[in-house]
């Protein structure tokens, strides 16, 4: 039975009609396209009147298919599918084609634009006739959630969910939660003590009945899909029995092996081989760094084991891999600092008193290696002049094209701390001051009042090569004061490099595990940069904090909370709809050649060694269709994008091209020229 197709061409006011002869397109479609029984144009198809018109036609004209030529399906596909559904038609039998963004708005010639519109409508009509009714699928949502990363974004997300009564598995790579924020002394622009506002949150997480805290642990493998993920987590061997340890700290105190702490102290201080990164660490249970421990080096010492009052030390502990089941995942994996040695002209690593911003955070932290005293590397001299260099590795196409977002404000904070704690003069070398959040510009004004010197110019180099006696023994900062248009040199004692915030080194690789993608730079890609900032293209996986892009604490907290709210929404609803656009394999015809087996990054294709056929796990399939195109036997079908539908679309879109009917395929040939006299 032939399909009965309705074609609806929208004027969109004058948006489409201004460049496309919509009446002609509708007339033409009605007159020329096979199986079209109704073809109408209308001022605003998406209006309730427009929708009602379609619904009425479906009922009256017994339409079996609908084509709407209007704007982008990304805007109104849902609208028209719903209208069709209201009239009792399966929503997947409605096809939209884009006559606005792809035709009227980009064209200058009315005739050619109208031709293009006809081709697109023709393509949709041919296609829609071959579309099949599809039913959306639903899966139940496991109410537990995995949060990856125990920085401020992850902590916020964890608490929001746990407080709402849902279970959270919080996985942190380091021995303690807290993240970068735990390293800071003060936070801008309010100058709250970082520890004072962070540690209560940390201990709340540590004690929460709804939180399973897994520190010194890493996510190894994620399988399953939205609603039902299975996650393998490697708990690295702490060498300390978690249940027995009371966190008394005797072990660390007595441990004879001291090493430089490159992580928490950013190389500015030391820790023991058995340690918690900082006194307020959560959990308080220490870990043994086996690479530095004397016992693991030569089976001697064992001081910690001997002195532990609860016998909690276990040198033979092994890594343990556990599996948890969750419905949603929040990635809050944070950022890493740019390696300032990559810019040799700033002298970091060569000139002692050039510091990175993280080093300086530790330097002025009251709990840091100098007890918060701002002194040079010699440990005693207070600097008389301090230069702070912005945009080190940021806004530089050789390193990172992006603006790191926090450096201007952090530089102001540093300036304030130096001015407060020392007699030094402070210079800030900036390209553009960016202080665009609540209270930020006010803070900038405050620093201007406090006497911080602002110089507009990217520093060219920091050197110890003195040109005149006044420069001897100093670090000389050479730059152009761009407001004066003059090259200058200023001798200082200390230089602080505001290094760029970069994606974690393993962000791409880890993203693959989660099935989420990265920008070229390595930041996780959100579903929509404005309207869906914490969701990703993978349902059930959300991102929060600086892993999605450089951001400060307030923004990270907001994202943590936002991600938690999205997850709560999923949990409350209890089930999720999965678009039925999935692949399927005709097992009867599959020869088991296994070409498709490596096609799916979501591992949705499994091979059955018994039957020697491949099979699609529908719940894992995201519908990209790559396996469909790869199948040499042509036995994989992509629902809603199958070969017949696309071939028909190609034929329709080329309705005016030179082709003669094609006698191909195994069906009997179409008419060919024959000798008339025979």
């Amino acid at each position: 039975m032939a399909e009965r197709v309705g074609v609806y061409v929208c004027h969109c006011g004058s948006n489409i009609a201004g460049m496309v002869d919509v009446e002609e397109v509708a007339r033409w479609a009605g007159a020329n396209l096979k199986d079209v029984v109704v073809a109408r144009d209308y001022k605003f198809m998406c209006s309730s009147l427009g929708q009602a018109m379609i619904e009425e036609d479906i009922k009256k004209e017994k339409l079996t298919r609908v084509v709407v030529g209007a704007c982008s399906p990304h805007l109104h596909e849902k609208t028209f599918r719903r209208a069709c559904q209201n009239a009792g038609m399966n929503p997947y039998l409605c096809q939209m084609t884009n006559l606005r963004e792809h035709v009227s708005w980009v064209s200058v010639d009315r005739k050619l634009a109208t031709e293009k519109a006809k081709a697109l409508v023709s393509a949709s009509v041919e296609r829609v006739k071959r579309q099949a009714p599809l039913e959306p699928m639903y899966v139940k949502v496991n109410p537990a959630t995995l949060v990856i990363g125990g920085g401020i974004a992850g902590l916020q997300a964890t608490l929001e969910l746990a407080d709402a009564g849902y279970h959270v598995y919080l996985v942190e790579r380091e021995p303690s939660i807290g993240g970068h924020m735990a390293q800071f002394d003060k936070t801008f622009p309010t100058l709250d003590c970082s520890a004072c506002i962070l540690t209560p949150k940390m201990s709340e997480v540590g004690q929460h009945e709804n939180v399973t805290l897994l520190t010194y642990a890493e996510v190894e493998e994620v399988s399953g899909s939205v609603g039902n993920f299975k996650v393998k987590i490697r708990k690295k061997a702490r060498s300390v029995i978690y249940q027995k340890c009371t966190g008394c700290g005797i072990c660390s105190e007595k441990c004879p092996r001291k090493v430089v702490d490159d992580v928490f102290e950013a190389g500015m201080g030391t820790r023991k081989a058995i340690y918690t990164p900082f006194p307020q660490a959560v959990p308080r249970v220490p870990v043994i760094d086996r690479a530095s421990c004397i016992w693991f080096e030569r089976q001697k010492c064992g001081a910690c084991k001997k002195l532990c009052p609860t016998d909690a030390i276990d040198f033979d502990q092994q890594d343990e891999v556990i599996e948890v089941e969750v419905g949603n995942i929040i990635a809050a994996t944070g950022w890493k600092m740019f390696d300032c040695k990559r810019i040799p002209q700033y002298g970091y690593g060569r000139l002692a008193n050039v510091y990175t911003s993280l080093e300086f955070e530790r330097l002025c932290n009251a709990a840091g290696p100098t007890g918060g005293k701002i002194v040079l590397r010699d440990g005693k001299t207070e600097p008389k002049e301090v230069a702070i260099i912005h945009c080190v590795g940021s806004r530089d196409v050789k390193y990172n094209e992006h603006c790191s977002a926090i450096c201007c404000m952090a530089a102001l904070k540093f300036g304030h701390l130096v001015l407060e704690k020392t007699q030094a003069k402070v210079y800030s070398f900036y390209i553009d001051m960016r202080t665009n959040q609540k209270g930020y510009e006010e803070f900038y004004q405050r620093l201007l009042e406090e006497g911080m010197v602002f110089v507009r110019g990217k520093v060219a180099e920091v050197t110890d090569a003195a040109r005149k006696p006044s420069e001897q023994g100093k670090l000389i900062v050479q730059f152009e004061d761009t407001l004066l248009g003059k090259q200058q040199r200023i001798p200082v004692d200390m230089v602080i490099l505001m290094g760029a915030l970069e994606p974690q080194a393993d962000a791409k690789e880890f993203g693959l595990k989660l099935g989420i993608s990265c920008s070229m730079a390595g930041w996780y890609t959100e579903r929509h940069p404005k309207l869906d900032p914490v969701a990703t293209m993978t349902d059930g996986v959300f991102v929060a904090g600086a892993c999605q892009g450089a951001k400060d604490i307030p923004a990270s907290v907001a994202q943590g909370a936002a991600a938690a709210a999205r997850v709560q929404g999923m949990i409350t609803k209890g089930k999720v709809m999965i678009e039925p656009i999935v692949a399927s394999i005709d097992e009867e015809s599959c020869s088991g050649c296994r070409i498709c087996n490596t096609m799916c990054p979501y591992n949705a294709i499994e091979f059955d060694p018994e039957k020697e056929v491949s099979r699609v796990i529908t719940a894992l399939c995201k519908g990209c269709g790559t396996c469909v195109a790869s199948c040499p036997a042509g036995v994989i079908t992509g629902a809603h994008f199958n070969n017949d539908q696309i071939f028909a679309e190609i034929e329709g879109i080329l309705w005016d091209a030179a082709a003669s009917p094609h006698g191909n395929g195994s069906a009997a040939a179409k008419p060919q020229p024959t000798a008339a006299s025979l």
Partner: protein
Amino acid sequence: MSKPKGKLALYWAASCGGCEIAVLQLDAKILDVAEAFDIVFWPVAVDAKVRDVERMADGEIDVCLFNGAIRTSEQEYMAQLLRRKSKVLVAFGSCSHEGGIPAIANLNNKNEIFQTSYRDTPSTENPNGVYPQPETQVPEGTLHLPVFYDTVRTLDQTVPVDYYLPGCPPEADRIWDAITAILENKLPAAGTVLGDDTTVCDTCPRKRSEKKIKEFKRTWQVIPDAETCLLEQGLLCCGIATRAGCGALCPQVNSPCIGCYGPNNGVQDYGARLMAALASVIDANSPDEIQRIIEQGIPDPIGSFYRFSLAHSLLRRKKLAKAGE
């Protein structure tokens, strides 16, 4: 058998003749055929003339097994004639099904082919450059030769075809299956390819695993391991895309499938299936590396992907210099 005998015709167009021999491979069963059918036309074996066929009523022949592609006007005439006189027309073998080996000549045109065949080959002595002409005047009158086309066609690009029996040549038991089906009137829907709806891998005994290809190798470059999938050993085996029905004869003797059974059901372009599948499993992500693997490993893409199916492919032939502009 009380039923009156049916009428069978066989014809040989542009092909090597292997299909004719394949019929004889039926061995003793050929007697059953002879018992069931009167062979009314079979130029290679039976003394019946074209004019005998022309004299028949339309549809008088019950079954015609037509092998070979259409390359000349005479072949096209015979295809039309036999179509009209036969109830069931079967495209028999790769050449009539898909163009077969003769259709690789679609990479050239008539002039190039004539030049090579009648002038450039080392064994040819033709200093005056005399090429075959459709008409030649001799004292006795005009001599005619069939017109040689630029493009080889399949049988179904020439006349409507009822069934296809693929293979180069079709396997004897497949032929017998077809004949049995005809005799017992159990033929499937018209237009069917009489083979399996799966590919050669299904019948190939080799062990297959996930595929990642770093290098395509030519057959002379490796002595393949007898157990593992030939494709996984880098050999360009067409079994993945080729309709089953042959029993995986070639891979079983360590030789990669060359694709004579043609594409699976519903496939519009056999070569495209191979290209898509093979390219998909190339283990490289840089354009240069991908290019290198393809260009080094597959120097002759058309010969590799369309060995039997160029005429039947979507593009049918190489761009003809005179066409279009």
